[in-house]
């Protein structure tokens, strides 16, 4: 029998676990370098393991043979679950035990100072922005007030113009409308004034000897003009409109386009 065949037998005894440790170590070392012996090991290993399977019959309850006690399982599982919960609490403990990062005092002071400077600069910037925003807000509020007032006036004018309670005095291409103390000239298809001219309203007050000048106006491209007359209508007894130079006149310089008397 060759030396290698003898080694194959040693591999078999090694697989069985029946070699003294020194010889087992030699076989382990040999297996690292010898393909044939490795194949022998791989072939015999399952057979040796299977020897243990034959012993399982000793613990087979169906054969009526001896089986491990139920207390054994309870003991092992209890130990495992206790160990498992301890590991969990240990991990939590490790997390809790993590030390916070401690900064040197000078670093803390420097960081605080830098933070304070940044905060001051930031606040100044914010204050300036705030002032700008306040100015803009004030302007917007003023504009909104103007618009609101205009809207109220327009709504009032519109209500006066369509109100059945208003008194209407027809004129060529329009009418003069009186509603309580407010007075309007409402015109349509009114010819545009010549270049350098505007229409001007005139009012005659009770017990007055002559008309006084009022607002000037120009109809739009459609020939429409709705003109509130800034006067207390209660004291006005007549209204006239004439063509006047731009900027208006203190005395009429042309024949009136219309003159209408208002009843009290």
């Amino acid at each position, binding site marked *: 029998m060759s030396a290698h065949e003898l080694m194959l037998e040693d591999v078999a005894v090694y697989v069985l676990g029946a070699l003294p440790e020194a010889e087992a170590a030699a076989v382990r070392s040999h297996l690292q370098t010898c393909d044939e012996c490795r194949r022998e090991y791989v072939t*015999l290993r399952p057979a040796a393991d299977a020897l*243990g399977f034959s012993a399982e*019959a*000793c*613990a087979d309850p169906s054969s009526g043979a001896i089986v*491990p006690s139920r207390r054994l399982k309870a*003991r092992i599982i209890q130990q495992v679950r206790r160990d498992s919960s301890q590991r969990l609490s240990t991990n939590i403990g490790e997390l809790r035990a993590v030390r916070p990062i401690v900064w040197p005092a000078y670093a803390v002071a420097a960081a605080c100072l830098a933070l304070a400077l940044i905060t001051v600069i930031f606040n100044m910037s914010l204050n300036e922005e705030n002032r700008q925003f306040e100015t803009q807000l004030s302007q917007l509020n003023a504009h909104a007030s103007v618009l609101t007032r205009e809207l109220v006036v327009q709504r009032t004018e519109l209500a006066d113009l369509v109100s059945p309670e208003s008194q209407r005095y027809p004129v060529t291409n329009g009418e003069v409308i009186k509603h309580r103390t407010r007075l309007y000239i409402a015109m349509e298809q009114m010819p545009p004034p010549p270049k350098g001219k505007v229409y001007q309203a005139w009012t005659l007050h009770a017990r007055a000897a002559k008309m006084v000048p009022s607002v000037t106006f120009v109809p739009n491209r459609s020939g429409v003009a709705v003109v509130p007359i800034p006067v207390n209508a209660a004291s006005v007894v007549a209204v006239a409109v004439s063509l006047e130079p731009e900027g208006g006149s203190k005395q009429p310089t042309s024949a009136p386009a219309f003159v209408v008397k208002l009843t009290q």
Partner: protein
Amino acid sequence: MEDGGQLIARVRARDAAAFERLYDAYHRLVYGVAMRVLGERSGAEDVTQAVFMKVWNAPEKFASGNLAGWLVRVARNSALDLLRNRSRQPVELPEHSALDDGPEAEVFARLDALSVRSALEQLPPEQREPIESGFFGGLTHEEIARNSGVPLGTVKTRIRSGLLRLRATLDGAVRA
């Protein structure tokens, strides 16, 4: 049903429920090997407990392959250690070798006890006895030779021949 490798993977993740399933699947094998080696219940239970606690504490020792075969070796070594030293300290788990992952390893893991016992009984006594003495009795080849009065070389030849024959019989069993 999960195989041994899957259960071990979950045990590595500290899954106690997987460990319990692993115990249910393999405790009779481990206990049976320990009983066969020690011949008494108390020691076999101690070995079983020690083996499974080692598996719980160091599941990474088993890499892949035939978990049942690995547990057989662990149980045998633990029981033999107890038998020799009568110290209640279990042995360390052996590292799982890549050589133990033969292509049929997992196929052989599905062998049942009756098939293996039947295969063993088919061996001639002069081959079966040294194999069982070496495996369950923990005897070295020299002790077997001395006890049986058979030359050492002959013992080694019989062991090898017996294992090869056992392997061939088991091959037939797993392919049946």
